C-alpha cells in the first residue's frame, strides 16, 4: 500500500478536491495530519493488520468484521497466544495481511483443525473464521460436532447468504425470497428448501457456552458485534465451552445491489430472518481480568 501511495503521490496532489466541485463551501484538508495539537483516536488499520490494501470488492462487510476481531485481539494483548484458522472464502485473502498466526484449513474443516491445535496446546487462543458457504454448506458437521463436544475454541461465521468468492450463488443460509445468481426469482421453498439458521441451531447444543449473532451494517452494530467477540474470547479463556459468533456481512457484488444500499438490503433480508443478539450465554459472568 505504501508503495502504491508513493507512486501515485504526484497524481493524488493534482486530484485534491478543487473548490469548484463543491462551490464555495469550505473543504477540510484531509491530505495530512493537522499541525494544531491533536490526539490520534483511530489509525488507518488496527495494530494487527499489517497491510490495509486488499482485493475485496467495494462495500464488502468482511474487512469490517476482520478489523473488529483483530482490534479485540490487540486490545486484550492476545497476539502471541492467538491462532486464527481460516476456511475458504474471500476473507482467506486476509491471511497475508494479518500480523497473527494463521492456519489454512480445507473447505469447511476449520473447527476440526482448531480442535487439534487447541488440544495439542491448551494455552492457545484459537479462533476460526469461516463464511456461510464454508461452514454451513461444506462443513456443517465439523462445527456442529465441535460445538457438541464443547471444544474450547471460538468460531466466527461471516454470513452474507451467498458464495461470494465463486460468483454469488445460493448457500444454505440464503433466506427465502433472496435473489442470488442461481435463484434469480428469489429462493423458493418448493425448489430449494428452507435456510439453516446455524447460530440458533448451535445455541440448542449444551456444549456451546456462548452463541451470539451480530452484524456490521452500521457503526453501532459494529460496536455491538465487537462486544460479542470480546465475550466469546473471554468465554474461551474461562474454558467453559464452545463459543460462536455469527456476523452478518454485506456482499453487494453477490447480491446485485448498490454498495450504499447493501446495509439496508441486509437488514431487510438476512437480518429479518436472523435477529441479532446473544442467543446463549451459559458461562459465568466473572471477568478474566
Amino acid at each position, binding site marked *: *500500500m505504501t508503495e*502504491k*501511495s508513493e507512486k*501515485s503521490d504526484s*497524481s*493524488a496532489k493534482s*486530484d*485534491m*478536491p*478543487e473548490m469548484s*466541485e*463543491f462551490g*464555495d*463551501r*469550505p*473543504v*477540510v484538508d*484531509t*491530505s*495530512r*495530519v*493537522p*499541525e*494544531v*495539537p*491533536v*490526539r*490520534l*483516536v*483511530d*489509525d*488507518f*488499520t488496527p495494530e494487527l*493488520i499489517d497491510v*490495509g*490494501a*486488499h482485493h*475485496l*470488492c*467495494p*462495500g*464488502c*462487510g*468482511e*474487512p*469490517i468484521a476482520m*478489523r*473488529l476481531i483483530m482490534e479485540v485481539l490487540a486490545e486484550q494483548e492476545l497476539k502471541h497466544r492467538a491462532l486464527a484458522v481460516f476456511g475458504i472464502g474471500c476473507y482467506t485473502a486476509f491471511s497475508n495481511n494479518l500480523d497473527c498466526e494463521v492456519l489454512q484449513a480445507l473447505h469447511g474443516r476449520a473447527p476440526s483443525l482448531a480442535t487439534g491445535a487447541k488440544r495439542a496446546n491448551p494455552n492457545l487462543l484459537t479462533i476460526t473464521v469461516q463464511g456461510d458457504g464454508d461452514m454451513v454448506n461444506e462443513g456443517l458437521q465439523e462445527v456442529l460436532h465441535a460445538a457438541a463436544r464443547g471444544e474450547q475454541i471460538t468460531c466466527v461465521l461471516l454470513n452474507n447468504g451467498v458464495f461470494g468468492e465463486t460468483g454469488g450463488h445460493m448457500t444454505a443460509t440464503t433466506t427465502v425470497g433472496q435473489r442470488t445468481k442461481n435463484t434469480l426469482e428469489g429462493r423458493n421453498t418448493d425448489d430449494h428448501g428452507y435456510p439453516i439458521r446455524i447460530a440458533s441451531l448451535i445455541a440448542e447444543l449444551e456444549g456451546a457456552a456462548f452463541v451470539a449473532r451480530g452484524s*456490521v451494517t*452500521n*457503526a453501532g452494530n*459494529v*460496536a455491538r458485534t465487537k462486544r460479542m467477540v470480546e465475550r466469546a474470547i473471554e468465554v474461551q479463556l474461562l474454558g467453559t465451552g464452545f463459543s460462536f459468533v455469527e456476523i452478518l456481512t454485506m456482499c*453487494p457484488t453477490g447480491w446485485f445491489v*448498490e*454498495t*450504499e*444500499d447493501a*446495509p439496508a438490503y441486509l437488514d431487510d433480508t438476512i437480518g429479518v430472518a436472523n435477529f441479532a443478539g446473544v442467543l446463549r450465554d451459559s458461562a459465568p459472568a466473572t471477568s478474566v481480568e
Partner: protein
Amino acid sequence: MGDSMTSESQSGAAAPASDDVGTLSRGTLVIDTEACKGCWLCIDACPPRVLEMTSQSLNSRGYRYPVLFPGCTGCRACAQICPDFVFQVFKYETPVGMLAEEDHQ
C-alpha cells in the same frame, strides 16, 4: 436511495457558510483517497453527516472518494465502517474552526 440523496443535499444546503470561524470541528480525518473504493458506507455512517462523496474528482484507480466538511466530531464511525481502512481519526484538544486552523498554519 432517493431519500438518502435528498437528505444529503438538504444537510449540505443547511451547512452554514463560513462566518468568523465557520463551523467548529472537534475532530478531523486524514483520508487515504488512493485506498478508497468509493463504496459510500462512510457517508451514511457519519452521524454529523459531514462526509460527502466527490462527484467529479477520482483517485488514480478511478473511484470517487469522500471529502470532509467542517463539523467532524471525531466519533470514529467512518473508520469503524470503512472496508478499505481509508480513515485516520484525530481529536482536537480544543475545537477549531476552519479559518482558525488556517491562521495557525
